[in-house]
């Protein structure tokens, strides 16, 4: 499939989404008003990072004109169960503070009013009596015995601790010729989509149910969790995702506690409620990647073969463990060997709570932090062993003829040819010339560096990988978990036109276009003839626990479900057409809007007539054939098995590969980085639409570049939040990004009919570390941390300054 020269799949089909977006006709959550009488919510949030709530006086606020009501945590507690997670430490997470606030920005009270202006006026009038407590924001400091404890019932801030060993890491390190060791801090960052969170919640008493419109984007494993928090059955909570979402990059997963909060408040206040998060709320209290204090040790033999790895991950989860955390530290776990052959790996994972906002999905999801260690270590080892950084990677790559490859921690790598990618990269970037330029620049006393990095991009997650947070015994007790199911529905109506429903809740990735390409190929139509509905509705369409927009699952798994469903519709059309044309079904082909006899294209009938036969004349269908043309496929990749007793798991379906090279000069006088060249080569399997693929690579690069250079959700030592505006949280602009030279090649994945792999995260994972590698090379340093701010780089480039 997708191999035919005339197929739509693989072509640069302009996106079907664009026309509405370019004319102001696309509707986002804040544009919707699905029912009358909606009131507008403002949230009063804690100014304190850590404090006990002694009392809340909302009388004045309630009495203000236009105010419908005020709801506090204490009132809501009666109606809510805590939001559960895979971490078993005894600590309760509610979507609103009950008796204590644990981060600056945590919701304390909800106000509903006629409009947002009045709601904000009333929020200001609420008086909260706080007893401030000492705060801790640093993950290492939070482990100290004297540290303030966030959740007293958990007995401390260390809320999760597991150790793993694959192969024999002890022996590998004992026998190593060279061991490199690095310890570093990774800063807190957030993808900050241009559209913030938004939701409308509506409670109906009879029959008792909640309907919530929002830009929540899954994973829908959180739907039953939300229902449990509301104390209702799953069918009493209908989630509707808006057809258009203004970016997510994972972050909109963190919206779900607010959906619970708004739903419960809608019940208490007796009216539908709408809340649109403002940017200040988004930065301080939506979600973010974790800051970490990690260590890595890498063992090598004398020839630069990587023989062992030890990871010590200390993850600052923030104030609460919000499901699906602690998934971010387990996302790369099964692929902890990266793109290398190393078989002996030890991993320690510790999660610590601090007075920062809770972490969650964020582009790259654990990948940038993971690769920062591994790829810094590879560069460092190359330097120590006097091996070229490209060569040391080449020596350790998985063999091109060794796929599928089962990694030591259970990842099953589907396909690849990493050496080919690296050679392409070195050629595109003209590596020999860059090295000569580095030599020349250094001879003049200039600070010129080259960075390299390589890695795999796991896509299409196994929903069970997060259960590595539990011991095999705990998993056994909890019951089996596995899989990552995708759903797609294809329908042909009586007029012969096609509608597709997806469960992938896209946020700009062009899923509708690619789905239309797939269905157009299957049914012999043109993509623009297909309507693709991306507005997911748990009350009316098929969905699974895995539904949603994360882990690049679309091109890894969802495309297979679309193809399967479209294939069944095509099969039925052929069977019906075969009767009408009086030939065998195998002799019918669908092309150019017609069902026609293969090899005799002039003999055929319009698809509309075939479709009509199934809808208007069921009695005339072949015996046993069901009427209509409606099909839903639920597809689970067989590779996504449950974790085994040795904590090994096939964590993802496809493994793309990428490698990056950057050459830069550090301006000694200012600390500014002058990027001379940035090249990136990707294997994303078969490309379904080059416009979409290039867009994802460039966007991921921009996120990675911002993360490397500017971005940090900063707190002071007392827990006060310092990055509350876009003038403080610095996202890269068009004037800041260097040109990206991008190329791709294809190794087909055996995991879906198209050979495609999930993609979109990769560049955001590698860009931070490759820039750090180049700066380390330029400055001849072992230790470099992010962001590579002007001040930091200047200090590194001028070690004689005392940093006054």
């Amino acid at each position, binding site marked *: 499939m997708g191999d035919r020269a005339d197929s739509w799949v693989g072509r640069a089909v302009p996106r079907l*989404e664009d026309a509405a977006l370019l004319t102001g006709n696309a509707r986002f959550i804040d544009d919707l008003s699905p029912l009358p009488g909606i009131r507008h919510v403002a949230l009063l949030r804690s100014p304190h990072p850590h404090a006990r709530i002694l009392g809340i006086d909302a009388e004045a606020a309630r009495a203000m004109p236009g105010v419908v009501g005020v709801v506090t945590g204490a009132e809501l507690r009666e109606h809510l169960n805590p939001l559960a997670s895979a971490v078993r430490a005894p600590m309760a997470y509610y979507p609103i503070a009950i008796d204590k606030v644990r981060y600056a920005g945590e919701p304390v009270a909800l106000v509903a009013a006629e409009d947002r202006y009045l709601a904000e006026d009333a929020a200001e009038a609420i008086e909260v009596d706080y007893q401030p407590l000492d705060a801790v924001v640093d993950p290492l400091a939070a482990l100290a015995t004297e540290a303030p404890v966030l959740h007293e019932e958990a007995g401390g801030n260390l809320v999760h601790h597991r150790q793993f060993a694959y192969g024999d890491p002890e022996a590998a390190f004992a026998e190593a010729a060279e061991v490199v060791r690095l310890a570093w801090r990774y800063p807190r960052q957030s993808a900050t989509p241009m559209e913030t969170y938004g939701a409308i919640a509506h409670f109906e008493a009879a029959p008792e149910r909640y309907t919530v419109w929002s830009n929540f984007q899954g994973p829908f494993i959180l739907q039953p969790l939300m229902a449990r928090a509301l104390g209702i059955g799953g069918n009493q909570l209908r989630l509707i995702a808006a057809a258009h979402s203004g970016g997510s990059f994972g972050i909109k997963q963190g919206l779900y506690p607010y959906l619970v909060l708004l739903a419960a408040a809608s019940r208490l206040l007796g009216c539908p409620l709408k809340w649109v998060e403002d940017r200040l709320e988004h930065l301080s209290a939506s979600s973010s990647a974790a800051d970490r204090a990690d260590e890595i040790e890498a063992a090598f033999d004398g020839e630069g073969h990587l023989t062992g790895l030890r990871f010590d991950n200390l993850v600052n989860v923030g104030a609460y463990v919000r499901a699906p955390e602690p998934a971010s530290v387990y996302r790369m776990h099964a692929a902890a060997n990266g793109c290398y052959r190393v078989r002996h790996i030890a991993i320690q994972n510790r999660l610590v709570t601090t007075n920062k906002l809770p972490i969650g999905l964020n582009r790259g999801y654990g990948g940038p932090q993971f690769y920062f260690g591994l790829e810094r270590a590879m560069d460092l080892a190359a330097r120590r062993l006097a091996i070229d950084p490209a060569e040391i990677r080449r020596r350790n790559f998985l063999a091109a003829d060794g796929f599928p490859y089962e990694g030591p921690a259970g990842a099953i790598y589907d396909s690849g040819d990493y050496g080919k990618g690296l050679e392409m990269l070195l050629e595109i970037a003209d590596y020999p010339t860059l090295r000569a330029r580095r030599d020349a620049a250094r001879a003049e006393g200039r600070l010129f560096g080259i960075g390299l990095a390589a890695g795999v991009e796991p896509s299409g997650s196994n929903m069970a990988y997060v259960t590595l947070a539990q011991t095999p015994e705990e998993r056994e007790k909890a019951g089996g978990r596995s899989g990552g199911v995708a759903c797609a529905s294809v329908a042909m109506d009586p007029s012969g036109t096609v509608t597709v429903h997806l469960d992938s809740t896209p946020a700009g990735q062009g899923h509708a276009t690619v789905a239309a390409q797939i269905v157009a190929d299957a049914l012999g139509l043109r993509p623009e003839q297909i309507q693709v509905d991306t507005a997911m509705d748990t009350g009316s369409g098929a969905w699974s626990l895995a539904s949603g927009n994360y882990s690049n699952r679309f091109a890894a798994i969802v495309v297979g479900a679309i193809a399967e469903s479209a294939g069944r519709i095509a099969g039925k059309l052929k069977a019906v057409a075969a009767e009408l044309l009086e030939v065998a079904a195998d002799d019918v082909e669908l092309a150019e809007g017609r069902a026609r006899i293969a090899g005799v294209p002039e003999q055929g009938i319009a698809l509309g007539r075939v479709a009509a036969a199934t809808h208007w004349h069921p009695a005339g269908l072949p015996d046993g054939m069901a009427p209509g043309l409606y099909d839903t496929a639920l597809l689970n990749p067989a590779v996504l098995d449950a974790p085994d007793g040795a904590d090994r798991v096939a964590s993802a379906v496809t493994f793309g590969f990428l490698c990056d090279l950057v050459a830069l000069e550090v301006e000694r006088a200012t600390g500014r980085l002058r990027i001379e060249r940035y090249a990136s080569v990707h294997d994303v399997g078969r490309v379904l639409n080059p416009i979409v693929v290039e*867009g994802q690579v460039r966007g991921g690069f921009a996120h990675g570049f911002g993360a490397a250079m500017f971005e940090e959700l900063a707190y002071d030592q007392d827990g006060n939040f310092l990055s509350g505006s876009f003038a403080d949280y610095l996202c890269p602009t068009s*004037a800041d990004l260097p040109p990206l030279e991008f190329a791709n090649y294809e190794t087909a994945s055996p995991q879906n009919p198209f050979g495609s792999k999930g993609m979109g995260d990769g560049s955001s994972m590698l860009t931070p570390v490759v820039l750090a590698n180049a700066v380390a090379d330029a400055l001849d340093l072992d230790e470099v941390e992010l962001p590579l701010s002007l001040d930091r780089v200047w200090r590194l480039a001028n070690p004689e300054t005392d940093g006054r």
Partner: protein
Amino acid sequence: MMRLPPGQRTRVTCTVNGQAHSGFAESRTLLSDFLRHELHLYGTHVGCEHGVCGACTVVLDGRLARSCATLAVQAEGAEITTVEGLAADEGLEPLRQAFSRHGALQCGFCTPGILASASHFLAARPDPTEAEVRDMLSGHLCRCTGYEGMVRAILEVARETTEGANQ
């Protein structure tokens, strides 16, 4: 002198996209909220409400304005162009198509403001350099695309238009 006390609403009349519009606003009502929730022109998007991200950019009396940093009452009698008005401009069709062809948008949330800036910019500077385009675009945040497609699209349209004019 016009005076509007706090909490009182007044009728604001302006020309939006060539048509007379009117709606009610308080003194503090932001132009972005007025356009969206009073005039139901939802194509203008709000991304930060502090004048940085550029998503809400519109043309107000010939100048670009962050509609989140502008009061609705300031627009009394003004001429405003939003993305809906740009959509009706056939002359901008090449720009829209170039945006699509070059992958200049993904989620499209920031796009309406960028189209307002780009069309305003190209009218003032029909033959810009890449550096000028990048400088102009630096007044907008996009988290999806990395901006490259926008730069290419704007330069391509400028080149085609300039060449067409020279022929």
